């Protein structure tokens, strides 16, 4: 009795029931064939075929009935009418085949779609189930959802980070590919921000929890991706409208054909191919897969509509500061003023690079204790070239510079007026350097050691290292016009544009001006994307057909409002986002064509008397699978 109950409960599970029904009906069809073809026993054979049709039809008729109760005519109803009609006019094996194929097709579709929805499932599974929290000297493992803000969380090497927060102590590198799509792990130490769902690689880190659960960046990404997948693309809406008329249209056609030809088999065959299966699934399958694929690479696309638009973009405008450039200063020039030591003999030459490094060395020592952005930039550049010790003492003079002592050396780093004030002689040679650098838009910092000017540095908001290659790629994928928009003056703007390889530059732009440039591009017939970050880009981002936000990880507003949000601060993701959109758009078109050709061919075939019920169903189901497979290609396609 228990085993019978078990069987019943198995049968209640929809996916297991489908498998049982499919197997049983398949066996009936095979044995039916055996009796019909080999044994030449038509009675047994046909009986088996009817059984097969009833078994496979059970599920279909049930759904048809449900639909009718809800006053809807669904595909299942058409198939049911066709199967019952087939049996009543004595085409038993065709009826069996139609129901079996319909069930099999549905099952295969479910399985492949399950695969497609997996990308999202994988994202959900990134969030660890438990977290180790630190209370005084004790650690305790609790369910991750119980972690509260400001709790201290310990993550061991190899562990997943359960919350968004800040590293309180410890050092490690963290694989953030789930959030940013960057494959290179990011270094984390005290004060670094970390994200839930990323993987701690080689060190123990203690994290002060900031955001937990549904507030974390990962949860927001998941929510966004899901909403995006559900937002219907224009093509999808169009097709659904079409499908609403298509099915009743075919039913009508079937009735009319019967009236004129009195051929019931023709009429029910029409019902079978009246299912718009491939057509209705053609767009969603591409959109789900395309958006999922993009999300995996750290590119969040708001929905099918944006995906379709992004695939058609012909002009792209970029903000300069923080988009094309790092948005923070870096050392671009170093000059040395050290009196050239006269070589004693001819071979003993002092290479200039050493003296430049010395300038950076002394500047770095002086800046070692400062948090000023310029100081950070100088120290970073100096440390790239050599070890820099900390100053023994230092004093900042806000707005001017810094004075520091390192063993017996006195160091001064600051702007020209700071040097004036400290009675340091700025000679003609130094003055020329200052002038040339200022003309190039650089911020000039002078360095003096023991009362003598030894050199200086030029600092500039540096361009992203991959800006030029990203712009190159954009042209390659068919962006006709690249435009740079900036509030800066023309010489700075031009130098950045030249480096990036952008021909159209608009400088000294106010936020409204940026918007006007976008609108002009649209008037010229372009579909325009705008890439920006700050609030001053908001009008332009809104005016553009597609607004793209960079470096969105951790900034909720960007994730929620941008049409496309790039999680990493990586310019090469822009061409990648547009490329995936183009691929997806092409995929949608291919799918629609496959579906329409199938429908057309089937209709022609039926009226020409070449396609019968079983064959029609087979081709129909194959076209659905073909469309799904084609959509799934977007997962891997290069």
């Amino acid at each position, binding site marked *: 009795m228990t085993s019978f109950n078990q069987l019943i409960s198995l049968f209640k599970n929809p996916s297991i029931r489908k498998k049982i029904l499919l197997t049983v009906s398949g066996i009936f069809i095979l044995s039916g064939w055996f009796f019909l073809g080999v044994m030449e026993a038509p009675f047994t054979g046909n009986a088996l075929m009817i059984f097969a049709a009833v078994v496979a039809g059970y599920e279909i008729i049930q*759904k048809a009935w449900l639909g009718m*109760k809800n006053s809807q005519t669904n595909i299942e109803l058409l198939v049911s009418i066709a199967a019952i009609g087939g049996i009543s006019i004595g085409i038993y094996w065709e009826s069996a085949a139609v129901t079996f194929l319909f069930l099999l097709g549905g099952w295969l579709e479910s399985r492949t779609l399950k695969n497609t929805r997996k990308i999202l499932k994988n994202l959900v599974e990134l969030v660890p189930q438990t977290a180790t929290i630190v209370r005084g000297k004790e650690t305790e493992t609790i369910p991750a959802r119980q972690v509260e803000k400001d709790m201290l969380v310990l993550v061991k090497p190899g562990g997943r980070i359960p919350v968004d927060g800040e590293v309180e102590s410890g050092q490690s590198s963290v694989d953030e590919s789930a959030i940013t799509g960057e494959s290179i792990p990011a270094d984390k130490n005290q004060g670094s921000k970390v994200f839930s769902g990323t993987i701690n690689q080689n060190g123990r880190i203690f994290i002060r929890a900031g955001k937990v659960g549904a507030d974390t960046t990962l949860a927001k990404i998941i929510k966004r991706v899901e909403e995006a997948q559900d937002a219907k693309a224009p093509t999808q809406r169009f097709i659904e409208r079409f499908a609403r008329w298509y099915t009743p249209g075919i039913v009508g056609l079937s009735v009319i054909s019967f009236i004129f030809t009195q051929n019931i088999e023709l009429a029910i065959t029409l019902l079978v191919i009246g299912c718009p299966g491939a057509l*209705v699934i053609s767009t969603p399958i591409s959109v789900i897969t395309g958006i999922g694929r993009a999300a995996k690479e750290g590119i969040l696309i708001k929905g099918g509509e944006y995906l379709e638009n992004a695939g058609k973009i012909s002009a792209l405008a970029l903000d300069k500061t923080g988009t094309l450039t790092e948005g923070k200063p870096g050392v671009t020039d170093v000059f040395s003023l050290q009196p050239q030591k006269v070589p004693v003999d001819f071979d003993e030459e002092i290479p200039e690079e050493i003296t430049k490094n010395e300038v950076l060395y002394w500047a770095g020592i002086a800046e070692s204790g400062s948090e000023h952005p310029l100081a950070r930039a100088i120290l970073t550049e100096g440390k790239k070239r050599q070890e820099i010790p900390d100053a023994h003492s230092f004093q900042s003079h806000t707005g001017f510079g810094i004075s520091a002592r390192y063993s017996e050396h006195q160091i001064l780093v600051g702007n020209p007026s700071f040097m004036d004030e400290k009675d340091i002689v700025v000679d003609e040679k130094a003055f020329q350097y200052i002038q040339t650098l200022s003309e190039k838009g650089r911020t000039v910092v002078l360095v003096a050691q023991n009362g003598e000017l030894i050199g200086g540095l030029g600092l500039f908001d540096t361009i992203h290292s991959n800006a030029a290659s990203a712009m190159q790629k954009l042209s390659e994928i068919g962006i006709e016009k690249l435009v740079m928009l900036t509030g800066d003056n023309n010489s700075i703007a031009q130098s950045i544009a030249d480096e990036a390889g952008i021909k159209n530059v608009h400088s000294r732009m106010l936020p409204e001006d940026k918007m006007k440039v976008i609108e002009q591009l649209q008037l010229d017939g372009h579909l325009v994307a705008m890439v920006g970050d700050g609030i001053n880009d908001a009008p332009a981002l809104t005016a553009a057909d597609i607004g793209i936000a960079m470096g969105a990880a951790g900034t909720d507003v960007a994730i929620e409002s941008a049409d496309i949000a790039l999680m990493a601060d990586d310019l090469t993701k822009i061409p990648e986002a547009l490329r995936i959109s183009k691929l997806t758009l092409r995929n949608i078109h291919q799918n629609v064509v496959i579906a329409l050709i199938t429908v057309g061919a089937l209709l022609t075939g039926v009226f020409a008397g070449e396609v019968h019920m079983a064959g029609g169903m087979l081709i129909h189901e194959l076209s659905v699978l073909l469309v799904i497979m084609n959509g799934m290609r977007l997962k891997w396609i290069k």
Partner: protein
Amino acid sequence: MKTILRSDELNCPSCVNNIESNLKGLEGIEKVTVKFNSGKIEVEHDPELVTEDDLLAAVMQSGYSAMVSPF
């Protein structure tokens, strides 16, 4: 109360209607949204009148298995 169910078996957009109607047929249901692409089923209901299990049973009756999901 809002309960979110997930099913990754939905295979044709027209099934969405079946699930929606079946759920709406239960007592104590305020709002039902079935999203085909993501397979997410959002139900606003009165937990006193209709439990999570009732919801799952209704989805199952439409021919699909589903799970309750935190978000």
